[in-house]
């Protein structure tokens, strides 16, 4: 017989230790331990069996892996913590003695990262240890970026020193510059929490959240010391990542930072990139606006022409666009199109088509000049437009320094992004003056510069996410915007997808239910409004006309469906007419016949469902306890999800019906 094993000497009991034990072993205070854990990425673990791990009767909350703690024992930062501790002790002792001068001297020597933002230690080695390769670091950049962008937008307080905020802001700007330069921004999403961005850096997807540019409300009990500890690490990490990213595309790091520009809220323009060597220096300048302004007027004219043509082409596809809003403008465009299409058509098409169809999504906006009205979020728009190839962005001088132009009447502007409501009353008059207003004098409300596309900001985001320019009339100022959909949702089987028509995704049972319900409602209505049948008919015919009109626009499938429906409707109308002649009873009977079939179908479906449930029950009884639990759990989550989907579908159905009713 082997040696008897004692309890708590090996295995899980030795593999884990409680936090108190860890702190004791490291001889640290709890805040220092917390700091160390945050920087070194040490986290508590859930042991497989809590009882085997803890010797105490009380349930300990946190367990750390013993080897993690052992690893911390060799951390050079520990020495720094201890030095700091002794220094604090000396200071307090000096103060106790009443020796203020000595205390002040010691205090001066002490590094106070919470005040100056500069500690005596560096976290370089920690970054390297946590992320042995660069890709590892990129993979873990999500939280880092979200935190830094948040802190860049925080107000400075005693807990969050201004220097820290400035540094965060600068790092973020540098990172954005890299994204712009390398065109690695992929997607962006306007959520209620802020703006999500997704970039692809060396094959890794990085997703982060940037708050809207408002003063952040600090609610609840938030310990900024903890956040500050994280930020300290994240700042170090991002500065190294930035260095690597910049050097990877041949740029010098750190880039030149213009303090005066930054003070004037130039944001991105405050940083100017430089090439790592002289050869690339000139080329890299292209990011800023300065170079663009020196552009040869001829080339500019050419570009403008092309852009105009391009836009006209876009307009050509949808001839009826903007008819309601500014017809005059359209007329001008139409004539332009006529003039220009004939000579340039073959060559121009070949040249323009690929960029337009989105061969290279990173150059989506490269041909346009944007102007941002003062009510638009400039920072995010500037970033996203630049990241997708736009070179010339002007904005209202209120929005800060660094714009391509602050003159709204600049003729090179092709797109203007506005986010203000349309004033209805002034419309008609202003349109008449449209042509006179081509000069640079200020336009009144609602007036438009001709030859320019006015869109709401969402147009930019939707275009970026779909990697194609969306048709601007959907996003015209004052128009009801189409829903803004998250580009991060991956469609899965059975899940509700708002982009697909309801008919394609609803289950059989739901469809039947809906039909029956509809039939019942119709029946009720018709029973109630016997006399209005004729009116109803008129309405119906109107409906048909409209449908036909729409049909020319829409896909052929829809048309077919509608035709089918039309036929059905025609048949029904026939029946109704007959019913009118013969009397009530017949009609109700006929109505019943249709619903009856549906009801039968439903009954069959229910029966089938019941059988299936029985089968399931039988099979479930044969499972072992463990498997049954697992199965039930899976079933529970699945049911929950599908219930949500069903709810969404029913809501959609209701909305569709309401919409149809409104149309009718």
């Amino acid at each position, binding site marked *: 017989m082997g040696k008897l094993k004692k309890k708590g000497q090996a295995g899980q009991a030795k593999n884990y230790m409680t936090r108190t034990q860890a702190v004791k072993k490291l001889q640290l205070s709890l805040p220092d331990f917390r700091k160390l854990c945050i920087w070194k990425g040490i986290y508590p*673990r859930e042991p497989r069996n809590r009882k085997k791990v803890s010797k105490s009767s009380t349930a300990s909350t946190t367990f750390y892996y013993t080897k993690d703690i052992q690893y911390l024992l060799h951390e050079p930062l520990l020495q720094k913590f201890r030095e700091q501790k002794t220094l604090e002790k000396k200071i307090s002792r000096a103060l106790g003695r009443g020796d203020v001068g000595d205390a002040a001297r010691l205090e001066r020597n002490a590094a106070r990262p919470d005040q100056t933002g500069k500690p005596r230690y*560096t976290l370089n080695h920690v970054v390297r240890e946590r992320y042995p390769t660069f890709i590892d670091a990129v993979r873990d950049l999500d939280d880092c970026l979200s935190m830094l962008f948040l802190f860049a937008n925080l107000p400075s307080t005693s807990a969050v020193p201004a220097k820290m905020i400035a540094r965060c802001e600068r790092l973020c700007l540098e990172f954005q510059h890299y994204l712009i330069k390398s065109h690695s921004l992929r997607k962006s999403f*306007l959520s209620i929490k802020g703006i999500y961005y997704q970039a692809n850096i060396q094959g890794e997807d990085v997703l982060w959240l940037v708050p*809207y540019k*408002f003063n952040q409300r600090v609610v609840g009990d938030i310990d900024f010391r903890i956040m500050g500890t994280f930020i300290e690490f994240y700042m170090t990490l991002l500065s190294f990542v930035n*260095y690597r990213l910049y050097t990877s595309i041949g740029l010098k790091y750190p880039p030149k930072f213009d303090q005066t520009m930054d003070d004037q809220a130039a944001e991105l323009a405050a940083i100017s990139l430089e090439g790592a060597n002289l050869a690339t220096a000139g080329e890299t300048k292209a990011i800023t606006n300065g170079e663009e302004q020196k552009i040869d007027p001829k080339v500019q004219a050419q570009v403008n022409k092309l852009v105009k043509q391009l836009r006209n082409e876009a307009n050509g596809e949808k001839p009826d666009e903007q008819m309601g809003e500014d017809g005059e403008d359209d007329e001008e465009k139409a004539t332009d199109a006529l003039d220009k299409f004939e000579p340039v058509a073959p060559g121009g098409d070949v040249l323009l088509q690929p960029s337009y169809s989105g061969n290279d999504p990173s150059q989506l906006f490269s041909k346009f000049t944007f102007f941002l009205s003062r009510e638009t979020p400039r920072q995010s728009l500037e970033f996203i437009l630049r990241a997708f190839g736009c070179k010339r962005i002007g904005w209202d001088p209120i929005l800060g320094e660094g714009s391509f132009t602050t003159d709204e009447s600049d003729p090179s502007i092709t797109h203007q992004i506005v*986010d203000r409501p349309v004033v209805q009353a002034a419309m008609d008059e202003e349109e008449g003056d449209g042509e006179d207003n081509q000069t640079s004098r200020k336009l009144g409300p609602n007036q438009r510069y001709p030859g320019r596309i006015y869109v709401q900001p969402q147009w930019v985001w939707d275009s970026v996410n779909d990697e194609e320019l969306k048709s601007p009339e959907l996003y015209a100022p004052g128009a009801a915007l189409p829903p803004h959909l998250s580009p991060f949702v991956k469609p899965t089987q059975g899940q509700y997808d708002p982009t697909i028509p309801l008919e394609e995704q609803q289950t059989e049972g739901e469809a039947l239910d809906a039909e029956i319900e509809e039939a019942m409602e119709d029946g009720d209505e018709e029973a109630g409004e016997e006399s209005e049948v004729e009116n109803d008919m008129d309405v119906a015919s109107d409906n048909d006309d409209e449908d036909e009109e729409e049909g020319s626009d829409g896909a052929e499938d829809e048309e077919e469906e509608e035709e089918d429906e039309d036929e059905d409707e025609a048949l029904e109308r026939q029946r109704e007419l007959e019913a009118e002649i013969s009397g009530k009873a017949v009609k109700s009977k006929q109505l019943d016949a249709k619903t009856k079939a549906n009801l039968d179908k439903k009954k069959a479906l229910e029966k089938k469902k019941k059988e299936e449930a029985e089968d399931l029950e*039988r099979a479930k009884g044969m499972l072992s306890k463990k498997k049954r639990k697992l199965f039930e759990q899976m079933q529970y989550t699945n049911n929950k999800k599908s219930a949500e989907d069903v709810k969404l579908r029913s809501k959609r159905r209701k909305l569709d019906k309401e919409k149809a009713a409104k149309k009718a």
Partner: protein
Amino acid sequence: MKAKTVEKKRKARDDSSDSESDDELGNGLFDGVLDASEDEGDYIPSDEIEEDESGSENDGSDGSDEEDDDALLSDDIPSDNEDLSKMEDLEIAEPGVDPKRTEADDEGRNYRIEKDANGGERYVYDEIDPVYDSDDSDAQGPVNTIGNIPMSFYDSYPHIGYDINGKKIMRPASGDALQSLLDTIEIPKGWTGLTDVNTGNPLNLTDEELELVRRVQMGLAPDDLVDPYPDTVEWFTSKEEKMPLSAAPEPKRRFLPSKNEAKMVMKLVRAIREGRILPYKPPEEREREAEEQEEVHFDLWQDEEPQAPNPMHIPAPKLPPPGYEMSYNPPEEYLPSKEEREEWEKTDPEEREKEYLPTKYNSLRKVPAWGELVKERFERCMDLYLAPRVRKNRLNIDPNSLLPKLPSPSELKPFPTVAQTIFRGHEGTVRSVSIDPTGVALATGGSDGTVRVWELLTGRQVWSVKLSSDEPVHIVRWRPTKDAFILSAAAGEDIYLMVPTHSSVTPGLDQTSRDILAAGFGYAANGQQAAITAGKEPAGKWARPGTKLEDEGVLVKITVRSTVKVINWHRRGDHFATVSPEGQRSSVAIHTLSKHLTQIPFRKLHGIAQTAAFHPSKPIFFVATMRTVRCYDLQKLELIKIVQPGAKWISSIDIHPGGDNLIVGSYDRRLLWHDLDLSNRPYKTMRFHPKAIRAVRYHKGGLPLFADASDDGTLQIFHGKVPNDQLENPTIVPVKQLKGHKVVNQVGVVDIDWHPREPWCVSAGADGTARLWM
């Protein structure tokens, strides 16, 4: 007016008369002197004398008296009042001139001429102030030279001693009334009231002396010039000595450079070279420099080597990407309805499934800041460093793949599916059902104490007997052979054997049955005798139940010690076992019909016996206690096996007709299939009921069916095929759940029995019915 002037006149006269009287005194004395004083310039000594006179008489007296005198004297006869007043005016003018003159005279010489005691002239010099540098070393030498002798020696003499020149020092005039009067009137400055012992003059003190006295009284140094805190004079420290104090030669070390100092200097030099010591800079400059050089940029991953990930490392899960509902302008169907919104608002923020409500803003400029963002980030931070991480393998599989593939029930037909007949008649629970071996009649026993026999297919009651008025009939069982038609039933502690009348029972069959029951009565006497001789209470008393019951067809009554709950017959029909769970040692009894003998096989039982059964082909006896099923060999009389189903409380067992398999139903809702050859543990555990299982039963007629009856009012029919090949496992498929019985007082279906040949079964329910399922 006149009166006034008169008064004035009189006054003036008075004044003049006073002054005259004074003057008379004076005149009387100093007549000649006054004459002499007429020409001041010529007779200076006389003037001096006059002055001396006045001075000696009243030393400090003011000069006004003298001047009065002078004025009066200068005008010999003050004839008129007006003249007098004139004179007074003159008087007033004069004093300004006269003292000046005398002072000027005094300054010229440092002595005075006085009259000595003998009346001779005497030069008295001014007192010399004995300052430090005066060369008069014995200024205040004693004037009287008599030495230290008592002054009383001179009392009888006019002098009091001799001066340095040998002249007598005259005793000063004393007791002069006028002088003493004057002395009392005014005390001159420096007056002490004492007499100088040496001179005999009144001892007056000068200002200096008074000051000195004051200082002594105050405890200060007597001399004003003494500085109590003089500056120290450093004689030896700051003054360079011209001469050495020690004559020792200079040591060598004074001339050699110090090694220790060199060491210290080198240390500093090294520190400076290494940059540990920096030249002083003002703190602002230092700070600025630190700021400038703080950021060090280099490629941290210059020599990166991909490392295999630590298997124990659990990376933090990323936050899920935002969905459609988080959009600032989501599709309408994602917006919450009014109820949903209310519910969301009502729930505690901690318990909300989503921390936000989908909201639609029809324009980007209307989107406000998200108030919870900082908190959310903070919580994420807390999660990153504080949340215990555990690796969970998410099963990304279709849950249906977990389910076993069961053959469709339609392939496994026949099995009972619907209730064909319902047997109503019992009041209260039907406790037990049994179908006779021919499959024609059904016997039921109920809580009302009756045993009823029904025609199985029609559901018609053909026979009934009330065995007990107060005890329920717990069990009814047919004798399992077709040669006789014998029914056994138990009510309370009594077991009854009866031959019911039935249409299918021919008189011959009836007779055989009666014979079989009656055959044992001869043995019974023997048995009883034996029991009596042993002096023990018999295990069972076999007797006739009485004429009334005998007329009904109940022929034998066996009384045992406690309530019988279970009866199980041996396949040959000669033995049957009864179980009475409360009976303790005698709870299991085996009765022999042919001998009317009751035996108790166990002296001791492990646990409370629940049920017992005979093996269908071998001489093996199964006894189920609450937890285990024990198998005994009846021939060798030994324990073969203990089957452990793992159930907490076994309710019933049944043995497969093949004899190798056993099903166990338990009150803890499980149905367990045991393969007796395989293991003591269950081969399969099935859980189909949410309530206890009361009865389990195999089909005994060759069909692969078994069923259980549960308190939830349902029966579960299984297809259970035992293959002939020993190596194959039995296949168990649930085929049908039969619902129909109502649950009364949480009791559903109590008993179940299969038809001997057909795939039919009968169940007994707590709702007072029995049902035939086919």
